[in-house]
């Protein structure tokens, strides 16, 4: 058994405290004169003995609590005696730490790494053992400690540089565990790395490497790297026009400290060059390169920004992104034909070219079921009634993903609309706030804050729904299953959503023509009606690119479907069946374009290497080792390490938990007995 925090064992001195108190008090017991011992002498000895026993039990329990707490905090753990212990002596036990992070692709670094590792293996004497760990932002054991040189070389041969970042801490932690298996040997740690400063992001103050370990650094780092790379890029990932109106801005970083570089930067869309320019980047600084105005086909396009340079780390010269060109959302507004009835709606959806909406306005009497079916979102703007065929068609279209917004105002025929079975409300009467409620106006004062249609109001504190004044509204009663998303100040529903079983229908219980309210004149009108239509169309934003290591969300569509990811190398990675709206994440392991397929739909995702790896600034190995090497007195971590070590390691360290549990149980017993004693004493005093 070993102990992780031996300093806590000093806490065991606390065991002496109760005993000392007892002794001191006994020594110092004063003489009290009392009238007569006549009655005290008659107290039966058995009664005293019983009390003494109870107190002794309490003392033991208290000592046990302290002992177990001290034990638990000292964190004992058990190790299995390894066979190597028998061969203790002058044999060496080496752990080889090999950096295979993305930065090791610099120049010939990785080949040098392999050759250095090979030399260390060749130098092993008979009886020496070596374990090999490869690390990037994770650490893995390539070979458990062994004397078999061939096995070690085979493990090194399989090693490839990764695209992941660097984290030293995990590597040292793992190395320390391997040393647990090399007890009794001369311990040696050999670390082959470029010693990138970015990798030293330790989150723990714990030191990992024992004082008995000799450390050797094989430093492949450079004090002044000649790398130029793309750090980051801002991409407007969606376009609603053939000519790209957004911007692709790349940030180019020159990591050289002594001279500026001039590099040609080009952008290509679907492997065809779409723009090119040359930028000059000052030493150790960044410059932006901006591209726009190129043509895009419909759907996802694969974009690539490329630096035309011959630096030793080519991976960060490419930066991948995607742009999704979509058709605009087709929105149909059906109104009753009253003059300017849909004026504000038209303004809201078409006032700017870049708005992703295509609007058509027709009168109710001209509307056909076919026309309604041709649009992604239908807004029924305060009409007395619709034809029954259109109503029934709308019920069907919702099931295929169409969104519908019903505006109920002064023209709505309550009788007809109440006959619309799927409408999530029942229209009771039209309320004129001044006349019927005796107030000048009502405001919308409460809304469901986490609903997507109110997202702009949650983000911006200056934007408020409550600024609009409602002089009249259609009083409605929500039907069972529907959700009231916004309410007027008297609690009457203002925006209602249909039930989950019949998704895609919103009801707004006032007009949008500036007659019943001044909402269209308020800043809140535009974001509210944009968000409502966006929400109804089930429109989803896309991101231009992800960084390696991020989880990429995959969200189910309208119906359950199988999801899969096609890797850049063409390999297929199944994600299983996704229910409607269900979300899963996948983590890519290499940069490139990934195709995400959900049923018949597919989308493209661009993944780039972590940009921090491009910064090759080196930290002196001695600084690194000084901060991971234990000072005298600190103990080693768990010794045993096997293939299924994670569970095993956790199990070995569970002892403290049991000790804590026993201390807790002893504490409960102590409280019970002490309370009983106090109760008995009090009862005695009272009587």
């Amino acid at each position: 058994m070993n102990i992780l925090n031996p300093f806590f064992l000093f806490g065991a001195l606390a065991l002496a405290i109760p005993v000392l108190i007892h002794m001191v008090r006994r020594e110092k017991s004063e003489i009290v004169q009392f009238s007569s011992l006549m009655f005290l002498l008659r107290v039966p000895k058995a009664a005293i003995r019983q009390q003494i026993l109870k107190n002794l039990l309490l003392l033991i329990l208290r000592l046990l609590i302290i002992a177990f707490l001290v034990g638990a905090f000292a964190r004992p753990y058990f190790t299995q005696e390894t066979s190597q212990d028998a061969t203790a002596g002058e044999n060496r036990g080496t752990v080889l730490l090999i950096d295979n992070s993305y930065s090791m692709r610099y120049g010939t670094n990785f080949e040098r790494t392999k050759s250095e590792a090979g030399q260390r293996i060749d130098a092993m004497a008979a009886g020496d053992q070596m374990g090999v760990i490869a690390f990037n932002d994770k650490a893995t054991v390539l070979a458990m400690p062994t004397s078999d040189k061939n096995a070690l070389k085979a493990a090194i041969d399989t090693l490839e540089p990764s695209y992941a970042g660097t984290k030293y801490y995990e590597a040292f932690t793992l190395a320390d565990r391997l040393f647990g298996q090399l007890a009794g040997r001369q311990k040696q740690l050999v670390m082959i790395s470029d010693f990138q400063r970015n990798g030293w992001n330790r989150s723990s103050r714990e030191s990992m490497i024992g004082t008995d370990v000799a450390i050797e650094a094989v430093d492949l780092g450079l004090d002044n790297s000649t790398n130029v790379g793309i750090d980051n890029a801002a991409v407007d990932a969606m376009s609603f026009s053939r000519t790209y109106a957004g911007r692709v801005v790349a940030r180019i970083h020159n990591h050289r400290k002594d001279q500026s570089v001039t590099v040609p930067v080009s952008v290509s869309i679907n492997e065809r060059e779409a723009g090119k320019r040359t930028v000059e980047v000052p030493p150790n600084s960044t410059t932006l390169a901006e591209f726009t105005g190129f043509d895009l086909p419909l759907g996802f396009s694969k974009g690539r920004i490329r630096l035309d340079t011959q630096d030793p780390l080519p991976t960060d010269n490419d930066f991948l992104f995607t742009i999704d060109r979509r058709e605009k959302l087709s929105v149909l507004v059906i109104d009753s034909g009253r003059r300017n009835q849909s004026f504000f709606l038209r303004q809201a959806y078409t006032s700017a070219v870049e708005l992703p909406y295509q609007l058509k306005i027709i009168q109710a009497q001209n509307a056909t079921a076919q026309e309604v079916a041709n649009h992604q979102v239908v807004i029924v703007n305060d009409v007395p009634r619709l034809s029954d065929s259109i109503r029934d068609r709308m019920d069907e279209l919702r099931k295929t993903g169409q969104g519908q917004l019903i505006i109920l105002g002064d023209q709505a025929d309550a009788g007809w609309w109440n006959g619309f079975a799927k409408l999530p409300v029942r229209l009771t009467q039209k309320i004129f706030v001044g006349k019927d409620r005796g107030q000048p106006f009502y405001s919308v004062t409460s809304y469901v804050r986490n609903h997507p249609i109110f997202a702009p109001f949650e983000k911006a504190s200056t934007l408020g729904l409550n600024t609009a004044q409602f002089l009249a509204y259609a009083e409605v009663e929500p039907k069972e299953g529907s959700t009231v998303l916004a309410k007027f100040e008297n609690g009457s529903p203002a925006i209602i959503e249909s039930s989950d079983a019949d998704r895609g229908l919103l009801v707004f219980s006032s007009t949008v023509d500036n007659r019943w309210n001044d909402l269209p004149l308020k800043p809140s009108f535009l974001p509210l009606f944009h968000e409502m239509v966006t929400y109804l169309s089930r429109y989803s934003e896309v991101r231009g690119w992800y960084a390696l290591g991020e989880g990429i969300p995959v969200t189910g569509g309208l119906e359950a479907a199988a999801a899969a990811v096609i890797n850049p190398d063409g390999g297929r990675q199944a994600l299983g069946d996704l229910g409607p709206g269900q979300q899963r994440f996948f983590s890519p392991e290499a940069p490139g374009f990934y195709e995400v397929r959900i049923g018949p739909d597919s989308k493209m995702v661009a993944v780039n290497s972590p940009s921090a790896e491009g910064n090759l600034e080196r930290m002196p190995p001695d600084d690194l080792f000084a901060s991971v090497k234990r000072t005298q007195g600190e103990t080693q971590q768990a010794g045993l390490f096997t293939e299924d070590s994670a569970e095993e390691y956790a199990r070995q360290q569970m002892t403290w938990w049991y000790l804590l549990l026993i201390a807790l149980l002893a504490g409960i017993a102590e409280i019970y007995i002490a309370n009983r004693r106090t109760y008995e004493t009090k009862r005695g005093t009272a009587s």
Partner: protein
Amino acid sequence: MSTPVVDRPANRFIDPKVLMKIQNLELLARAVVEGFVSGLHRSPYLGFSVDFAEYRQYMPGDDLRRIDWNVYSRSDKLYIKLYEGETNTRVLILLDVSGSMNYGSGEVKKIDYARILAAVLTYFSYHQRDGVGLLTFDTEVRAHIPASRRSGQLINILKTIENVVPSQTTEFKKPLRYLAELLKRRGIIVLISDLYDEPENIIAGLKALRSKGNDIIVFHIMDDFELNFPFDEAAQFEDLETKRKMHVIPDYLRTKYLEILEDHMATIRKELAGARIDYVLMNTSKPLDLGLFTYLAARAKTQ
């Protein structure tokens, strides 16, 4: 006998802590008695305490037999003769001066309390024209002043009370037997003691006195710490009588001690009640009223 209790706040004449400051025992007794009796004029116990005779004009309804005809013959007016005090009672105070009486948890020791009580009763009885006597004892009779109304008797008794020094153990058998042989006339016997002896020894002696027609009042003087045993620190307890020591952890012993004490007191109380002897438990942290009332009630019975 029911024990009347008067709870008057700040009755400074009866509070033993205040009385302790008066050095002269006679002065102290007078202060108590006068304060107490003048207090009683407002109380419902008027009627058996005064020995002063006075006249009051006859009122219709008064008993004709109580008219003083001598006064009528001289003054030609009808006067009623109220209370002509009679003194034919002898009061003997038995004061326990054993070592245990020297105990006191606060300012007032049991012996001080007993002294004040004895002095007050002596003074009171003397001025009632009763014959007063005193007997102090521990294992033996230490002093005995037979009951009398001679002049100088009061001073004599008070001086004796003042000079008692508690020591020795307690034993009731011998002193009570001595007293039973000695007493020829019946009267009131007041025993002031902490009763640290076996109940049968106490009861047997008192019963013998009672059988001779004496009215007996037992004042059981106990300290608050003896009654409740509120000690919490472990300590060596030393017996004030035998000087014996015992290591005591109060928490262990309290319950049993209180049980044994209660048993002792209950036995005494029960036996005394059976012999029609008045028993009053006096807690030295409480005022003296209770003792005086009990005494007055007992004396009223003998009138």
